[in-house]
C-alpha cells in the first residue's frame, strides 16, 4: 500500500483491494444488508474513479472514501424503496450465518444484535469509533457533525447498549 499513487486514476485496483472491505462494512453498518452494502460499495468506487482527484495523503484518501461511503449509504437508506422494506432483515442476515452456539459466538451475536438495534446515526458512530478506530475529531470531519454531537451520540449509544448487553460477561 505504500507504493500506491495518490492519484485516483493510478493503482485503482490496488485501492479497491485495500479499501473495499472498509467501505463495505460502513455501508453494511448503515443499511444492515449485504446486497445493498455491495451496491453501495461499487457505487463509491465508481465515484472515486470518475472523480479522478489527487490526495494529499493516504489518510486523506481514506477519509474521502469513508465520507463518500457515508453519503452513498445515507442516500440509499433515504430512498423510498428501502424505507418500505422490513428493517429487521439486516439483523437477520448478520446473525444467521454462525451455526455454532459456543459462548464466544453467542457473545458476538449478542453484540452484533445489540448494535444493529441502535438507531442509524448511533450505529454509524459506534462503528467508526470502535472498529475503524477513528477519533472523535476524525468522525466529526468524516460525518460533518460537530465533535460535541459525536461525543453525545457515542454516550447515548453506550447507554442504549448497556441494558441490551447486561447479560453478556465483559471482563
Amino acid at each position, binding site marked *: 500500500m505504500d507504493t500506491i499513487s495518490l492519484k485516483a486514476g493510478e493503482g485503482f485496483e490496488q485501492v*479497491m483491494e485495500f479499501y473495499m*472491505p472498509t467501505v*463495505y462494512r460502513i455501508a453494511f453498518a448503515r443499511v444492515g444488508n449485504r446486497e445493498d452494502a*455491495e451496491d453501495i460499495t461499487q457505487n463509491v468506487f465508481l465515484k472515486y*474513479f470518475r472523480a479522478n482527484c489527487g490526495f494529499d495523503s493516504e489518510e486523506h484518501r481514506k477519509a474521502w472514501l469513508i465520507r463518500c461511503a457515508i453519503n452513498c449509504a445515507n442516500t440509499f437508506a433515504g430512498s423510498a424503496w428501502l424505507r418500505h422494506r422490513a428493517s429487521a432483515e439486516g439483523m437477520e442476515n448478520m446473525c444467521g450465518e454462525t451455526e455454532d452456539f459456543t459462548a464466544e459466538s453467542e457473545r458476538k451475536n449478542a453484540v452484533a444484535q445489540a448494535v444493529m438495534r441502535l438507531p442509524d446515526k448511533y450505529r454509524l458512530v459506534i462503528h467508526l469509533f470502535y472498529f475503524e478506530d477513528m477519533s472523535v475529531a476524525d468522525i466529526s470531519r468524516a460525518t460533518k457533525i460537530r465533535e460535541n454531537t459525536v461525543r453525545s451520540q457515542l454516550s447515548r449509544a453506550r447507554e442504549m447498549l448497556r441494558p441490551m448487553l447486561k447479560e453478556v460477561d465483559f471482563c
Partner: protein
Amino acid sequence: MNFREEYIKAVEEITPDRQTIDRMKENVLRMTRTKRAFPFKAVAAIGGTAAACAVVTVAAVRIAPIMNASDNAYMTVSSMSGAAESMAENAADVNGAVNEDAPAEDEWGTFDAFSFENTDHDELLPADEPNEISQSAVESTTTNNNNDASPNADSENNAPKAPAAPSMGSHLYDSKEAESVFDDGEMPTHDVPALTEGWQYPMEAPTCDVCVSAEPYPYPNDETPPMPNAGFCPTEEAFPEETAEPTAPDTGGGGEAKFEGYTLTIAEDSSKCTLTDGVRTLVYRASSADGVPAGEYAHIPYAVLANTTDGKTYYVALSDDILIVRDEDFKLFGLFE
C-alpha cells in the same frame, strides 16, 4: 474482554470474502470501461425548458406593446395585427379570390359586417366570374352601405363590366337585404331578385340603323334605370298623335299671334274660352285678373278676332301661354291660361 474487542470480532464476521471482493471489483471495472449513456432525459428536459421560455418571451414581447398602447384596458381587434391579417386571408379565401392587396392594419380598425362590405368590390368580386345578375341587381343588395361609386361606373368604359353574381361565400350576403331575402331559409339562387321589389332586370335597348352605336346604359350605376322608351331611337315618333298636346297658335316668330282661322268661344260664365280652327281645339281656363296692373299686357301686339260665337269683336294676344282677351273698347275682358 471489552466491548471494542467483541464488536471487532462481530463485525469481522460480515467482512466480505475474497469472492465477493473480486465480484465487486469486476463490476466496478466493467462500469468504468463502459461509456456513459447519452443523457437524453437531461437534454430533453433542458431543451423543453428552453423552448418554453422562448415561447413565453416571444409572446411577452409581442403583447407588451399592445398592452401599453391600449393602456392595459383591453385589446381591440385592430390591435391584433395577427388577427387582422388572418381575417384578411380568410376574406380572400371566402370569396374565392386571392386578395393580394389586403387592407392594412389600420383599415381593419373597426371591424364589423358593414365596414367589411365597404371594401372594394373589385377585389372581392373578380370580374371573371359568370355574370348572371345585372349590375343594378347587385347594387340593390349593397345599397345601404355602398357609398363609393360602383367599380363598374368607369367613365372610360361606359359599357359596364358587370360584377359577378354574389356567391354564398360573398360578403354581399352579409348585408341586411340579403338577410331579409334569405330569412325564409331557402337557398339563394340567381332568381332571388324576383323576390324583392328593388330588384330589376336590365332592359335591352332597341336597335335600329341610326342608333346601332348607341350605348345601352349611358347612366351611372347609382341612377334609376331608364324607362323603356327612353332608349328608343330619337328619329321615331315617341308619342302617338292622339296623345299629343295641342299647340297654341303660331306667333310667327314676330311676337304677334296669328289667330287667322280660329274661332273664339267664351263661356257664359267666363270660366273658360276655346280656340278652334276646325281641327284642333284649345281650351283656356280663366285666370284671375285681380292684382294685375291696368297697363299690364297693353303694349303687346293684339290680333282682332271677329270670328266669335257671340258675334262680338275681341282683341286677343298670347303672352307666356296666357291668352289675353280685350273687348271692343280694348278693356281687359279676361286672362285665360
